[in-house]
């Protein structure tokens, strides 16, 4: 009985188990895509290793943590004693970025709400294209506007001796960051499903109530992400702040003080230093600092956009 049923089973065809062309193509594509995917990580690590290596001698040798972070004196070429304190530079970058956000947040949020919630059809498309165009303006052009237009304007309006200062750079940087922030904020608002709006509207919410009570809370992660990205942008911007801040070392006490930014310092001085000198290595240490801070800000932005942070 058992014998019989065993014979009745047809021979199994195992011919399918060959590594044919399709299999190799599939494997090859997998490898290529994987390489593409990790290349970003490789580059990031590569860059980090490079700047760390260049700044390394300073970090293990002359580096004085207290002086570096808490001294306002950046005197890399002093005859009797070189000082590498970046406190004033941090203050410069922070004050300009802070003011830039004060300018950019209302502009970009307002623009995003208008584009996403009020504008329709052609107006919408036109505005979106315009915002993208604005985002594509090179930073040197913004710097030029700061130098050639804002400078005399500030001198005349506020009757101050110099117009290259926190105010100038903050406004320039704010206008610069606003388009990209608008784009991202608008994406966040658009990602709020229409059924939420419909549900609120059906309850008799006015248009403003719908935006204020439902859409903005629903999009708050994305909006916060947009702001953090703007902050990251402000932190990393070099050319425009180099041109508009006045580039003088100062811990600002008013918006009319000239300041100097971390990035601008690297850009202005790196070309004049001897490779491997303390000055050179200190500039790279600033680079490491910028890298780490920007990394943290972007990471935060990313986490916030994804809503990993609860609430």
């Amino acid at each position, binding site marked *: 009985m058992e014998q019989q049923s065993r014979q009745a089973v047809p021979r199994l065809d195992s011919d399918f188990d060959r590594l044919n062309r399709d299999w190799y193509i599939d494997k090859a594509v997998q490898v290529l895509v994987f390489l593409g995917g990790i290349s970003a990580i490789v580059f990031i690590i590569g860059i980090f290793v490079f700047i760390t290596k260049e700044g390394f001698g300073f970090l293990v040798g002359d580096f004085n943590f207290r002086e570096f972070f808490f001294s306002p004196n950046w005197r890399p070429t002093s005859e009797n004693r070189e000082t590498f304190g970046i406190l004033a530079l941090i203050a410069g970058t922070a004050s300009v970025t802070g003011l830039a956000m004060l300018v950019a947040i209302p502009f970009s949020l307002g623009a995003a709400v208008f584009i996403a919630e009020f504008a329709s059809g052609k107006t919408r498309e036109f505005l979106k294209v315009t915002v993208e165009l604005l985002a594509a303006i090179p930073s040197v052009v913004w710097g030029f506007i700061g130098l050639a237009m804002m400078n005399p304007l500030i001198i005349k309006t506020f009757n101050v001796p110099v117009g290259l200062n926190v105010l100038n750079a903050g406004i320039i940087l704010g206008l610069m960051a606003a388009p990209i922030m608008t784009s991202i904020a608008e994406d966040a608002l658009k990602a709020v499903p229409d059924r939420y709006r419909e549900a609120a*509207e059906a*309850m008799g919410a006015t248009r403003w109530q719908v935006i204020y009570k*439902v859409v903005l809370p*629903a999009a708050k992660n994305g909006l916060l992400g947009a702001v953090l990205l703007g902050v990251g942008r402000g932190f990393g911007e070099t050319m425009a702040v180099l041109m508009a801040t006045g580039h003088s070392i100062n811990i600002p006490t008013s918006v009319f003080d000239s300041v100097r930014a971390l990035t601008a310092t690297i850009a202005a001085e790196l070309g004049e230093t001897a490779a491997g000198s303390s000055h050179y290595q200190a500039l790279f240490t600033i680079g490491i600092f910028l890298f780490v801070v920007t990394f943290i800000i972007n990471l935060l932005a990313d986490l916030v956009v994804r809503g990993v942070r609860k609430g």
Partner: protein
Amino acid sequence: MVIAPPQGVTTTERPVKLGVAGLRIRYGEQTALEGVTLDVYEHEIFGVIGPANAGKTSFLKAINRMDMFNTDMHVEGQITFNGLDTRKVRNVYGLRRRIGVVFPLPVGLPLSVYDNVALSPRLRGEKNRAELDVIVERCLRRAALWDEVKDRLDTLGSMLSGGQQQRLTIARALSQDPELLMLDEFSIAVDPVTTMRIEDVLKELRQEVTIILVTNLVQQARRLADRTAFFLDGRCVEVGVTEDLFTGEVQDQRTRDYVDGRFG
């Protein structure tokens, strides 16, 4: 102001909550619904049945003026609410606040459970926390959801299960203190047990509010509705006492075919 009940209805002297006359709805050039003339009385459950694309949802949208959001949608004819022409009300938000809507798919707004239910009172300007607490608890209880969420009122409404979200939607609609509650195929995304619980809630609500129940389940209309309209292919084929549609006289044979499940 009350519009006189239509001719032929002598058994009830109930006031007309919603009067519809010569309603026609079109999207662009395409007519979605036409020839609808009917009255919905105060404190009744008025069923609307019919196959997909019959125009049921469009009917509800016309009532609370949701056509305003769709430039394609045009509404002709007359719809009165409490005797007032809804086309002519100046404050459409005020109108909508008196009409609660429950959509086919539950919409738990991405706010906390509490804020979902407190939203409508807050839109009205209620700020007193104690007052809001009372409203939230009452509406959640009435929607048969309180016991399940009372310990986690601050979780996101959109995190609840589908059936819970649908009851949350109902609680939110109730928090409007509506005079008219419109439900559009509410049981589509809800399990049978929850459906039964919501049906029980609706039976109780009948004492206080007028209900329009659009449903794709004819038996649900039979269980709940006092009177029922049958929509088919953009026309109102029949309006009558619900039980008559199933067992009594019908004006149109297609009505009987539909409720008996012979098509649709």
